[in-house]
């Protein structure tokens, strides 16, 4: 006999989880079916798949290592200089890539590192030759580092901030050197997050699509995701698309299992600084300051300069020209509608699933069906899911006619694991803190959800909805599969503009898209915070 009861939300959550599992399994089944038809053991096919898989693995591993190599010293430098306003600003800026559309980032990177970018112009004004074109493996790695080093910086700075202040004080009192401090104080905390962080960034780079498509520069630099897209949209080689998608799925599933083993449930939320720095021996030495300054300057040049390049190149007559395009306004409206709907849907479904998980956990019931449904969508990347749906539906409907619905569904499903993790962690801590009090005060069921849970969860709901909408607004993966001249979103329009070498208009579009993304994200986050602050019993 227990007073902790799961309530009706448990059944609703299980029903939703079953639906999600069914959809994922149907997509995987379609891929298996397609891969089995016209089975081709020709050595050139096997060789091609092996080459693509090998390159995908190589670039993802290298990206993860390079991002860590940049983020770790930067996190330490930030932590050492935590009281200075510019490092705090840097940590704030480090959040931007989390919501930034990949197409915008690619435009920004070209704006800095391209043949006609900021660096080239500076070199030319100094009489040096410009940089070579920014395409190929180097550009892909640069883009992945741009996206993932800030994520790593935030989590590593969070790990350093989690070290008890007493340990920093002891280190200061004992006069530990920088190296001793790293091994004795910082490493025990960092090593708990680094393996999971590497696995997460590897997964993100392994499933990278738009950046490789835009910056890869040709078939030599292609990943499984891009190859699936090519097989499906250009060659209409369904067996090949199916094989590649299954391979991608298997590798991703392996990484997700590894990630769960390394980090448990906590991979989405651990970020931010909590503790306070204690001045250490040598912190103010000229050499240390110079090294920290250099590290932070490199970090800024890789991660922050592209943002300024977008601003600098996006504002101007080209922005006015873009505003006059009918396709621009149509794409803006389409993108906004899909982003809003998919963001709200993802958050709503995640809320039901996370609430069901929390209620089942306190009642001592199994939560694995809910976790499995969510983890599956982390392993099934957008392109794999889209390919599965494409193959599944193509015999019964015109997939291009259903494009808006499919993009909405795909974007919602891709955002779901992130929204779920954000809400699930907070709901678990709320349950631990409020279960007994609510039971003692007879605050139960819908009344508890409306008066207690919802207001306390409002910031997380806003964050989840903002992040889901931002991810959807910036998505170019699903729309690449289903998009057409009749159905365009802003990222797709931006990609096509870049492909026509109209750099000025592309920069203006990138600025518009970035502005919209930040606006949408901020509206969700701020309105949820306000709603949570004032709620009357």
């Amino acid at each position, binding site marked *: 006999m227990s007073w902790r009861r799961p309530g009706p939300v448990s059944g609703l959550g299980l029903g939703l989880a079953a639906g999600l599992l069914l959809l994922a399994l149907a997509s995987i089944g379609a891929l298996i079916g397609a891969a089995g038809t016209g089975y081709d053991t020709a050595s050139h096919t096997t060789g091609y798949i092996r080459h693509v898989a090998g390159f995908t693995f190589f670039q993802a591993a290298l990206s993860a290592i390079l991002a860590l190599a940049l983020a770790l010293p930067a996190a330490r430098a930030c932590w050492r200089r935590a009281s200075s306003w510019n490092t705090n600003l840097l940590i704030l800026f480090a959040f931007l890539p989390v919501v930034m559309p990949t197409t915008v980032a690619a435009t920004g990177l070209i704006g800095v590192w391209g043949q006609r970018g900021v660096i080239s112009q500076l070199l030319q004004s100094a009489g040096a030759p410009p940089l070579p074109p920014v395409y190929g493996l180097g550009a892909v790695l640069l883009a992945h580092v741009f996206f993932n080093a800030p994520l790593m910086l935030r989590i590593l700075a969070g790990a350093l901030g989690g070290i008890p202040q007493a340990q920093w004080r002891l280190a200061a009192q004992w006069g530990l050197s920088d190296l001793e401090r790293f091994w004795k104080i910082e490493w025990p905390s960092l090593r708990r997050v680094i393996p999971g962080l590497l696995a997460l960034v590897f997964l993100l780079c392994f499933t990278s699509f738009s950046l490789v498509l835009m910056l890869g520069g040709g078939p030599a630099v292609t990943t499984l995701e891009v190859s699936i897209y090519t097989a499906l949209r250009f060659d209409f080689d369904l067996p090949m698309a199916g094989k590649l998608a299954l391979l991608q799925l298997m590798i991703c599933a392996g990484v997700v299992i590894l990630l769960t083993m390394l980090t448990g449930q906590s991979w989405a939320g651990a970020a931010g600084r909590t503790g306070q720095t204690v001045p250490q021996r040598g912190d103010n030495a000229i050499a240390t300051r110079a090294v920290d300054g250099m590290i932070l300057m490199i970090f800024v040049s890789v991660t922050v300069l592209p943002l300024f390049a977008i601003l600098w190149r996006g504002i101007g007559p080209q922005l006015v020209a873009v505003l006059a395009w009918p396709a621009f306004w149509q794409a803006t409206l389409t993108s906004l509608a899909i982003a809003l709907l998919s963001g709200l849907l993802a958050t709503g479904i995640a809320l039901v699933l996370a609430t069901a998980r929390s209620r089942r956990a306190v009642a001592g019931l199994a939560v694995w069906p809910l976790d499995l449904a969510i983890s599956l969508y982390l392993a099934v990347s957008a392109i794999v899911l889209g390919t599965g749906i494409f193959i599944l539906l193509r015999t019964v409907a015109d997939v291009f006619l259903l494009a808006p619905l499919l993009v909405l569904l795909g974007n919602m499903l891709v955002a779901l694991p992130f929204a779920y993790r954000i809400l699930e962690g907070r709901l678990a801590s709320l349950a631990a803190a409020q279960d007994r009090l609510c039971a003692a005060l007879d605050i139960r069921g819908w009344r508890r959800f409306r*008066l207690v849970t919802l207001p306390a969860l409002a910031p997380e709901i806003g964050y989840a909805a903002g992040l889901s909408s931002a991810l959807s607004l910036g998505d170019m993966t699903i729309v690449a599969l289903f998009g057409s001249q009749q159905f365009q979103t802003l990222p797709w329009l931006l990609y096509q503009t870049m492909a026509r070498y109209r750099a000025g208009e592309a920069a203006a579009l990138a600025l518009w898209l970035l502005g919209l993304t930040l606006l949408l994200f901020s509206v969700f986050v701020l309105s949820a915070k306000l709603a949570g602050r004032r709620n009357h*019993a």
Partner: protein
Amino acid sequence: MLEIRGVSFTRPGGLSFSYDITVAEGEILAVQGPSGVGKTTLLDLIAGFEYPDSGSISWNGSNFLASPPWERPVTTVFQSDNLFTHLTCLENVRIGLPSIKRDDHAAINAAFTRLGIDGLQNRLPDAISGGQQQRVALARALLRDKPVLLLDESFSALDWPTRQGCFDSLREITETRQMAVLFVSHDERDSTHLGCKSLQLTA
């Protein structure tokens, strides 16, 4: 009368406790003893957060062991986390009251005044001290009008003069309303000041 008869309880680790206690209406019982002897467990059993292996717990002869926490004739002030941080103090009190009493502003304000926290009604819990938070929780508990009040080291965060003031109010309310109060405390001065019986639990 609150009667705890032949109640035994075993924790998952194998640690066992047994209780035989009665508390009359209008009586305060201070439960004392070192850490780990089962003081909070006793309150959890009465409140319904734990279920005994055997025995009965009744109010005026009616065994309420089968009832969930919200249906028991009991109200509790926990050691901490008594307030919802997103609600003001007034909202924290109102949310715990039966609907018929939620708009009785005169009674609510009187409780705030009696416990020396008048003027904090519209403040958020994070903006007041730990002692004030506990008094808001106590105000709510008293307004809930349940015949059994459980206090789990609820006043440990208060300085001694404030604690004395709360005890005086508690004693008066207990007598007026004929409540049965169980009060877990580490400080022997508490039972001396309240002039109540004390139950010394031992390992």
